[in-house]
């Protein structure tokens, strides 16, 4: 599994837990607020879990700019592509 696919899988798993949507039904173009019903607190909890899993920091600006599942995956993949010690990727 390539790095991007691994990140995508982990992001979908975290979102599935947070949004109570089955992981198989989380599509890359799903809108976080509208489709996954992620409220602002849910977004904070998701960001916290992803920060822990990938050993990164997601600044407020990045958090407010992501709209879809793919936006998150792109952001994390870019932040982690050269990391070797992060859990889950």
């Amino acid at each position, binding site marked *: 599994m390539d790095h991007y696919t691994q990140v995508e899988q982990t992001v979908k798993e975290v979102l599935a837990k947070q949004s*109570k949507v089955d992981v198989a039904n989380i599509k890359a173009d799903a809108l976080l607020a509208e489709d996954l019903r992620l409220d602002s*607190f849910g977004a*904070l*909890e998701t*960001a*916290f879990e992803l*920060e*822990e899993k990938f050993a990164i920091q997601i600044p407020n600006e990045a958090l407010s700019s992501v709209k879809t599942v793919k936006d998150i995956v792109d952001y994390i993949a870019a932040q982690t592509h050269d990391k070797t010690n992060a859990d889950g990727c």
Partner: protein
Amino acid sequence: MKKRRVVITGLGIIASNGVGTQTFWEANKQGVSGTGSLTRFDHRDLDSKVASEVRDFEPSQFMSPDLVDRVDRFVHFGLACTQMALADGKLDLSKEDKYRVGSVIGSGLGGLLFHEQQMMAAYERDTLRLSPACVPRITPNAVSSHIAIQYGVLGPNMVISTACASGAHAVGEAFRKIQSSDMDVCISGGVEAPLTLFTFGAYCRLRVVSRRNDAPQEASRPFDLNRDGFVLGEGAAVLILEELGHAVERNAPIYAEVIGYASNSGGYHIVIPEPEGTDASRAMGDAIKDAGISANDIDYINAHATSTGVNDRTETKAIKAVFDKRAYDIPVSSTKSMIGHTIGAAGAIEAAVCALAIKDQFVPPTINYKDKDPACDLDYVPGVGRPAKLNTVLSNSFGFGNCNACLIFSKFKE
């Protein structure tokens, strides 16, 4: 203007000697101790190894697994007791005007478990990258708010924190708010989950907890000559308080009527009761006055009775000041002898005990009372409970910081 009358129509109780109102009440009638050796955690610096732990409680029986994971143990207790109390009172909130229903709960300490876990992890990892859930999980009002969210009730929503008297103040303030027409129904009560390492250690350092580690079931022994402190316990009670007309209209079961309440302060010390008990006797007297009765009408006192040297002596002195010679004829007993000191839950659990005592016409005992302390010489109902004619009963709660609350309940008469 004539005050509105307030009755208790539902109870939900969780304590170390019983989960569920009937299980708890039977245990109390029979003098069953819920206290044992501390099993939740251990540390070499703890000199007390005794606790009243709630063992037979599975939160997922009362709420979704997701909610179980999202809230602290004190909220589990609050939500579970609410569900039990609503079922007991046959109250379907979907049929109620939700603007007229409130949640007023006592908690002395809030979400300590999560607080401590986060704090310890932060120090271990040398980071302040804390969970965003810290504030909503730790804040004491999480309990009243989650109850309000769960049932969509839109009336007054608050947590009262007055240490060991929190639950009594919550019931008392809910009573007042129904009396004064701020609401018609209130989910009131008290909750506490204080059995966490840091908090347990903190109470040990105050040197107020029993160290009778070799005989834990005998550790909580209010009024006994050889008492050596209280036993920290966890638990909760929710009482559905309801305006009388509202309760009658829906043909609700009625345990008892709340007829009097008073609260005051000793203005003396943050952890020591005022030695003469003048604030405690004033609170009892004011509650009697509020109820429009006389001291002669009180048939039973559910005492604060923590099992510390100072509290039990002072409370006895205060009872004598209010009831004079009649103090010796009134049965006085301690729920804490069986379930330890549940801090913010205690006053609510004891209010529920008063309601059950009235309904069942039975005075529960003070267990472990064996040797007479010359300073504590009333009828403490030692060891064995007894049937009694109970029309009017008094419940005392005296919290650290001299936060005092007294409640009076009576047998319901139309």
